[in-house]
């Protein structure tokens, strides 16, 4: 089993690295801090977050998305065609994101995350994955005042995310993950989502993953297996039915299974996790899976976020030693 996280990690840690991001961002907003001074704070926290993942023993790291306010903003504000609107609720969480509004044809004008990726990658000798929003979720969670067509908007976002993914691949990212939480809600247009991710990953040589989390996939697991990616991420915590549904679906991809609750402070026991691995083992060989918390860890205070990755690693290592 390969251990990893879904992406984000607390930006502040009262009990460990620092809470200085909060003050730095407000001073930067008041123009009392320059861009490069703010960037130095982000870099310091990024290093600390990577260090914690390394020390915990994770196999595949992320930069903790320390600069990210939400999944869409960092991309939307660097593209042509978007304005950022007020706050909206982020799926079934009591957490908010700023809703992008598309008011003209969206355009990618150059690499957005490459510099951040390169900085993070040189902080560790372990592989570090790049993370992007998926095209379907991007379109679904934005307001479309230009195309007024979910299909056209989603396809346009797929083209843009393809360019960004190419740039990240060129910068050395061995693994690129696309987050599609919107697939767990309402009645998603699975055909469109699968088509769009195919546009994004076309011709990429890096390993690619489509991650779903929150919500429930229910009957959509089968169509997800047709997505042109190497890895499919599934949240086994938010909807306990998902693991049962897996028994009835031909598994054609490597799976990344969310086994710990990234939205609750309660820490899973090693015994509980071993019991879950036992169930998973009956469905597919464990050698072929990634394991991670079900969602990003920024829903948790730092103390508990760190405990989650430590516990994940502990459970995987001790499972191998049984």
């Amino acid at each position, binding site marked *: 089993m390969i251990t990893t996280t879904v992406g984000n990690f*607390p930006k502040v840690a009262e009990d460990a690295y620092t809470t200085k991001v*909060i003050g730095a961002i407000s001073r930067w907003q008041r123009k009392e801090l320059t861009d490069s001074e703010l960037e130095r704070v982000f870099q310091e926290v990024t290093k600390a977050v990577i260090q914690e993942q390394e020390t915990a023993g994770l196999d595949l790291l992320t930069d903790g998305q320390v600069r990210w306010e939400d999944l869409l903003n960092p991309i939307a504000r660097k593209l042509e065609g978007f304005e950022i609107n*007020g*706050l909206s609720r982020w799926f*079934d969480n009591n957490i908010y994101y*700023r809703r992008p509004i598309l008011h003209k044809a969206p355009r990618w004008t150059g690499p957005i995350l490459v510099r951040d990726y390169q900085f993070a990658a040189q902080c560790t000798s372990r592989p570090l994955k790049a993370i992007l929003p998926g095209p379907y979720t991007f379109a679904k969670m934005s307001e479309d005042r230009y195309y007024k067509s979910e299909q056209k908007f989603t396809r346009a976002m797929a083209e843009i995310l393809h360019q960004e993914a190419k740039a990240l691949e060129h910068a050395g990212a061995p693994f690129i993950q696309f987050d599609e939480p919107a697939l767990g809600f309402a009645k998603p247009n699975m055909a469109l989502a699968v088509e769009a991710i195919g546009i994004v990953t076309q011709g990429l040589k890096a390993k690619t993953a489509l991650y779903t989390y929150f919500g429930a996939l229910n009957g959509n697991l089968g169509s997800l297996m047709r997505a042109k990616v190497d890895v499919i991420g599934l949240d086994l915590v938010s909807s306990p039915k998902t693991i049962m549904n897996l028994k009835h679906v031909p598994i054609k991809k490597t799976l990344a299974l969310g086994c710990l609750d990234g939205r*609750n*402070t309660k820490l899973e026991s090693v015994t509980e996790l071993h019991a879950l691995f036992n169930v998973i083992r009956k469905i597919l060989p464990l050698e072929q899976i990634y394991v991670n918390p079900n969602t990003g860890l920024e829903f948790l*205070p730092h103390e508990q976020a760190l405990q989650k990755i430590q516990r994940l690693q502990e459970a995987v290592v001790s499972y191998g030693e049984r």
Partner: protein
Amino acid sequence: MLLTTSVGSLPKPDYLTQARSQTRRGEMDPSRLRQLEQRATGEWIKAQEELGIDILVDGEQYRGDMVAYFAEHLGGFKQSGLVRSYGNRYYRKPILAGKITRPKPVTVDWWRFAQKQTRKPVKGMLTGPYTIMDWSFNEHFPSRRAASLAIARVIHEEAKDLERAGAQYIQIDEPAISTRPEEMDLAIEALGLVTRGLRAHTITHICYGDFKTIGPKLRRLPVDQIDLEFANRGFELLAFFKGKRFPKAIGLGVVDVHNHRVESTKEVVANLKKALKVFKPDQIYVDPDCGLKTRTPEEAKEKLRVVVEAAQAVRQELMN
């Protein structure tokens, strides 16, 4: 008919916001803060009376977050480390960590304080058990249901105490219902434990959400009045109620609380008249969409003024 009220929170004056952060930093004595909270509460009671509002609120000048306030005063909760809620905003999210108890009444003293200053009724304001559960971490209860029902039992005690103190209106807010419509039945069950045996007029405020799913179940919410946001979606919700003979009173949000623009009396009158094609006059309570705490005190007063003027104008017409 068309009684006017507000949803709960009112903005804090600058002197109180400053005092709260000074107290947090240890630069102000909590007893001094309490005096300022009382001053602000008194000012808001007076302001609501002057505006001519029928059912007053205490304005929640002494509360920060609607869930954290109860978590801080009930037993069984811990406070978490910092969690980000959006942008650069962080808060401490409550953790359900043990048996939920109520060492003493939470809101009754404040309710008494406010009611003493006016002859008009002041609403008792509580946060509902489902919302307290959903907006907390859970380390203690085996399920979301168990947690909700345990919280419901202590909120029921609080509601009983408010009623004993003389509250004629008790509002139990459940904004979290709209985020997980699949758990509406649980929210209904928990709210039922809270309102069981109460004689006061009970109200719940829920936010706009997936009305296709929760709409049909609204009539099963065990309260006398359901308060909803109508203004921020251009009154499109009226279509849902059309021809349904809704069996409860309806709190009709007629001004948008997330917008700086103050609506004109004329447009609110027009919208009230639309609502009167769907609801009976004595079924409607008129208020802003939601708590006004994010507006400035001046904006809040202007919005409330429009609520009152529009309701009075329509009442006049109905009586003539």
